[in-house]
């Protein structure tokens, strides 16, 4: 977006602002009217409210835009509260914010702020429609997670909103699903299993993967493409096929370990799942570490060797600190792959290796309790933390390599 903006002049009130805000208002009016079974009255009422609002706002040039929006929001909220209590208040607040924002956005000419002045009205319209489409897609990406978080505080054992929740009454909410999650073996044992399997699988894939990535990034590697294809294949082959193959292979392998080596059955079960998860995480480590190594200056290792460091010292003291961000983010990918994996564990593991995703999967199929939603909320929190870590590492790595554009 270029910043060719200037002081945009306000659009004409009667021929532009008022009709647009009226149409916007009519939309909300139609929806509100529909709730009470009178969409046409709502439509007309909404249009009038919109037009009037646009007119009033145009007069109040002195007041800050933000104040205007919140003022309108509170008025609408109070109006909503008269009809529908606390829930109505929030609904009204939402409509008010949208109306206020839209009215001031159109009224003050801010809608042209992002586009060059020479744009025709049609181009401006398209530009803004495009932004709305993008906003819708972002909404589509994020919004589904909101009800999950919200419903996890449900006081009832339902997957749906209760009237108490919608009117924001305290008795509609509780932490009981979190207590269920934290206090019962049904969830704690799977969590413990996940926390045993994922870190060990991650350590295996990171240690082997980093070494191989360093080997692959050397300048003369025969058959590099083929080896890369083999190492990346666990990511490309659909999970169901990997799981099927592993099911056929790991069952006899497990029997052999148990019978011939006399190992404990539960131990063998863990070994099978850990091996399976480790191999699934390897492509992520390879990809991120090789990407980091692209920016690695090889003369540094030569310099270290020149000063008398042996290859092991060079690796740990020179190379490792520089590629560490890539290694850690590869490790996080591997961790989340294992932590989130359910198909392979369903096929390869036994009930004793039940992991958190497995338990959630069973719960979703049988719809036992909203404790799944509490678990999901906790996982969302964990993934936000992981996301932030990866982002920070990526920025740090780019800064170290002098690639950051900011």
């Amino acid at each position, binding site marked *: 977006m270029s910043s060719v903006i200037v002081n945009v002049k306000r659009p004409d009130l009667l021929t532009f602002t008022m009709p647009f805000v009226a149409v916007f208002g009519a939309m909300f009016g139609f929806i509100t009217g*529909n709730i009470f079974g009178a969409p046409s009255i709502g439509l007309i009422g909404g249009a009038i409210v919109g037009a009037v609002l646009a007119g009033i706002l145009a007069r109040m040039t002195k007041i800050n835009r933000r104040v205007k929006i919140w003022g309108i929001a509170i008025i609408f909220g109070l109006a909503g509260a008269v009809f529908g209590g606390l829930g109505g208040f929030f609904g009204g607040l939402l409509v008010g914010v949208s109306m206020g924002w839209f009215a001031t956005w159109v009224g003050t000419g801010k809608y042209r702020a992002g586009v060059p002045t020479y744009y025709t009205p049609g181009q401006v319209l398209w530009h803004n429609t495009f932004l709305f489409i993008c906003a819708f897609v972002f909404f589509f990406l994020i919004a589904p997670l909101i009800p999950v978080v919200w419903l996890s505080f449900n006081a009832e054992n339902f997957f749906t909103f209760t009237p108490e929740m919608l009117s924001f009454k305290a008795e509609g909410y509780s932490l009981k699903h979190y207590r269920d999650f934290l206090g019962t073996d049904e969830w704690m044992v799977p969590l413990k299993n996940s926390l045993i399997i994922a870190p060990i699988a991650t350590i295996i894939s990171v240690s082997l993967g980093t070494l*191989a990535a360093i080997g692959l990034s050397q300048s003369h590697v025969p058959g590099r493409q083929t080896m890369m294809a083999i190492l990346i294949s666990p990511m490309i082959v*659909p999970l*169901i096929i990997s799981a099927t193959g592993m099911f056929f292979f790991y069952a006899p392998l497990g029997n052999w370990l148990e019978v011939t080596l006399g190992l404990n059955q539960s131990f063998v079960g863990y070994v099978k799942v850990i091996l399976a998860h480790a*191999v699934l995480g390897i492509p992520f480590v390879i990809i991120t570490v090789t990407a980091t190594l692209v920016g690695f200056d090889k003369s540094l290792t030569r310099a270290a060797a020149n000063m008398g460091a042996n290859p092991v010292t060079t690796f740990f003291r020179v190379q490792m600190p520089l590629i560490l961000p890539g290694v850690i983010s590869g490790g996080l990918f591997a961790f989340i792959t294992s932590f989130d994996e359910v198909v392979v564990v369903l096929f390869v593991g036994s009930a004793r290796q039940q992991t958190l995703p497995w338990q959630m999967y069973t719960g979703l199929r049988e719809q036992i309790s909203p404790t799944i939603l509490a678990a*999901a909320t906790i996982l969302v929190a964990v993934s936000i933390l992981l*996301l932030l870590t990866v*982002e920070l590492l990526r920025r740090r790595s780019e800064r170290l390599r002098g690639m950051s554009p900011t």
Partner: protein
Amino acid sequence: MSDTTDGLVLAADGRPLKQSLRRALLRQKIRALMLIAPLLLFVVVTFIVPILSMLFRSVENDIVPVTLPGVVTELAEWDSSTGEPPSEEVFRNLYIDLFKASEAKQHTRLGTRLNYEQTGLSSLFRTTGRSLDDIGEEWQDPLEDIDANFKDGAFWFEMMSGSDGDTFLEQRRDLLAEMIGESMAGDVGFVPSEQVAKMLPWTSRAYADFAIWTAIADNDVVAEEDPWEAVYGALGMDLTSPDTISAIGSYSGPGAEALQAAVANLDHLPQDGFREAFAAENGDWVSPDVWATIKLYSPSVTPGYFLNAIDMELTPDGIEQKPENEQIYTQLFIRTLIMALIITASCIVLGYPVAWLLANLPMRTSSILMILVLLPFWTSLLVRTSAWKVLLQQQGVINEILVWLGFVNDADRLILMNNATGTVIAMTHILLPFMVLPLYSVMKTVPPSYLRAAKSLGATNWTAFWRVYFPQSVPGIGAGSILVFILAIGYYITPEIVGGTSGVFISNRIAYHISSSLNWGLAAALGTILLIVVLGLYWCYDRIVGIDNVKLGG
């Protein structure tokens, strides 16, 4: 440092430089390979080998030749087009093989296997397995009446024991071991007599099987156990052969008297053969169809599973299309492909504008918006699937809102879940980041000045986009589409939870065959076909973007 003598450039140590360099290069290559080797080995063992074992499973058919070795050999001579059941010889082998299999509880597995090809065979094998003893007793009772010695386990042991029969015993041991898949190693405590083995071939086989099973599997002493009913039946088989009868006449070893008494009283024994005995148990045994199926699946490698996976079947008359009402897999494959295409298309439609916006906004704004794309990407698949279950179900959030707003009647709520709609919506959401990220990284490389240049040369917005920008973003669309498509056609969890019956993929069918119907061969064949499709797409992906260019998290 280097010296030139005879036109050769020498390194510091006096070797020719070329050789020295080659050595250094070789060392470098070896070091690189040493670094890669552990991981390569790990991936090959824990991943490539399992995939290969799946490919192998999709054609493997060992169970028939291994469980019924004698029958399979004998059946080779039978012509299924005659419409006649096979010869008595086949039924004798069937009796010996099946008795052994039912002692080892393998006959039901074989029945289940053959039932995939012809319905009813499972129960045929199961019920017959229960009455094999009765068939044997038809010979056992008269034999014991003729000479009471036949009741005695020790007598049998003495009669069958001898010398030089080790090779014979090992043969039987190998067959048994192959059938149950264990080594069966150990001391049997019994050496068959070669002389008796020649004289009483059937009896020796049955008795050797009995001895091995008793000693190794049951851990009992062979001489103290009464033989299987099959041994009496087998003796009955031997006593119909004139060669055996004349051999018994001149035989003087242990048990000669009892055998000669049996020969003298042949009319006390059942006059019917084993074909009649099996036919009496279940008329299906003399049905040529049943035998045609067994013969068809006698080889240890079969295309049967693959044919099943594409709704064909192997019949005695060649490969045929299955009846209309049994064709499900072709349809399912087509549905999987169509739904994956729809999902890919909706990901392009939704992802393209967003990627464009992210690529063209100032870095600071775009990295904040990028978090909105990455958050779902990092969130557990199960969380997102459960979110869609919460949203889409009949009492779910979307329906509640629509009903509350008055757009939908309470009585006829939208059915968004347990059908193809649910799968498409949920999977589009789940896979959208995989479209946005490659698109974004490609669009990032398209200089915005091109678009401005096109416009300044008089192109309209649309022309500038369509003729200048869009062609440059096509590699991104290609990369994203193939990634999404590959992921979509192999998805299992989401369709299973929100797809109901009409929104499931081929992968759900594979899982069903693995865990519920236990038809592993068919599951492997379906998986192999899916794998071939995916590898084809992967090859395209490699051609379009290259494996090295896969990027994660922007």
